[in-house]
């Protein structure tokens, strides 16, 4: 099992969710985040006050997957989140010690396998 953390552009979120859905990756959490990834700085002006925006809006996705899904998920993320410009984001793959589904107490692979609701 791995925890995949991806930092992406907010405007690519729709494309990413669609790609993940097509790759049958169902369980995920998203967070609105701000960060800095070496993008060209943006200059904005408000009534004569000029500022450089060092932090850019991003979306963070946390996806817990079983081992066979790691490569599929990473591939889907990379394909759908990429624009080719600096600031497309990062994908981190982290080891996971244990996963527990709160409702049923299922652990590990059982806990990250999507429930098929009839």
């Amino acid at each position, binding site marked *: 099992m791995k925890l995949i953390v991806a930092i992406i552009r907010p405007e690519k979120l729709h494309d990413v969710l669609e790609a993940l859905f097509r790759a049958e990756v169902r369980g995920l959490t998203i967070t609105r985040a*701000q*960060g800095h990834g070496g993008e060209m700085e943006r200059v*904005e002006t408000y009534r004569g006050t000029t500022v450089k925006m060092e932090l850019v809006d991003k979306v963070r996705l946390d996806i817990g997957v079983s081992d066979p899904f790691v490569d599929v998920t990473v591939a889907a993320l990379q394909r759908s989140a990429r624009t080719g410009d600096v600031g497309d984001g990062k994908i981190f793959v982290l080891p996971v010690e244990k996963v527990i589904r709160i409702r049923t107490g299922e652990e590990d692979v059982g806990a990250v396998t999507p429930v098929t609701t009839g």
Partner: protein
Amino acid sequence: MSLLLPLAPTWSLAAAVSPADTAWMLVATALVLLMTPALAFFYGGLVRAKNVLNTMMMSVAAMAAVGIAWALVGYSLAFAPGGALVGGLDHLFLRGVGLDAKGTLPHLLFMAYQATFAIITAALISGAVVERIRFGPYLAFITAWSVVVYAPVAHWVWGGGWLAKLGALDFAGGTVVHVNAAAAALVAALIVGPRRDYGRQAQLPHNIPFVVLGAGLLWFGWFGFNAGSALAANGIAALAFTNTLLAPATTLLVWMLLDQLRSKRTTAVGAATGVVVGLVAITPAAGYIGPLSALLLGGFAALPSYAAILLRSRSALDDSLDVVAAHGIGGTTGALLTGVLAQAVWGGTDGALFGAPRQLLWQAIGVAAAALYSAGASFALLKLIGKLVPLRPAARVEGMGLDLQEHGEEAYTTGEGAILVIPEEALPERAPAGLPLPAPAEGAF
């Protein structure tokens, strides 16, 4: 300097200028001007947060671009004595437009009142192309449009042109303003093309309270638009004023009922839209029909526009804020119903319901002529501007939103991560308080 000379001659407030009319029209002019920032809120609330400033600026900047073009050129083409199709050049650069009476108003006030109409009409077009047109080419388009399209069409109906002679009724601009703008909007939406994510992902309004605020301010300003079109403080103005209260009330009611029937909920965006559609529909009829007719007209006008919005949202046409459904269909419905419900006893000439079915034909001709001319000329103008500069921003810019690229601002910034840029010469010996971050090291993010 010689340009300014014609303004110098001695004015004597001619006896024909009415103080009462002047007082009302000063207020009405301010009311109509308010409609443009109101439109900025109405449209701004309907788009996504990343484009709200750009969308609002499309209306705000019209007050500059179109207002100036109107004073210098447009007013003359609309209202100077001329032929059947376009006015003359007598009032170019406001020559001969002073304090002498035009009707019962100082001529200058009449010009200013009409300027506010030109501004709001051009700004209406923006709703069809929001979130995807570059600001410069947009401004160039609406400025040219106000001179090449709006001014002649205004001349046809109000400046003594051929539609006026034919007998087509358009009290405050159902055809001149709404059908005219909607035809340009339709063409603009087709030429500029849909937003890159149109039809692929939901594009929801980002601030519905703004939409309701805008609709409320539009209604308020519309009293100046319709009742002011009487150009006097008289009974006709009172009739137009009352009809402007009554017709949108029934449109709003019917719109809420349609919402309720269709989705079991009355929506706030729907209510705001219903108000605008009702206002559009009563515009051509305001000073020609009785108050009970206005209630009827308003209720009926909800149906075609409601259907048009449902159809549009299922189609490939990205008329993003439904300019065609609200102003084109609403304006056409109003113009045709004017030909049905107009009554000589209320100041109009009798319409189809009162023994003059031919009035309906004159109304249809007016709508068709304005729509065709506006569509054709808008097509030519946009193609021309598109040849000189790109109309669309890069895909990357459209994705990030136009506020950042076109205006260098964000509507809802938290200020986090904003580092003050202090001009070099203002720096004392010590370093500025807000040190820029060092360039990120390899591997940092």
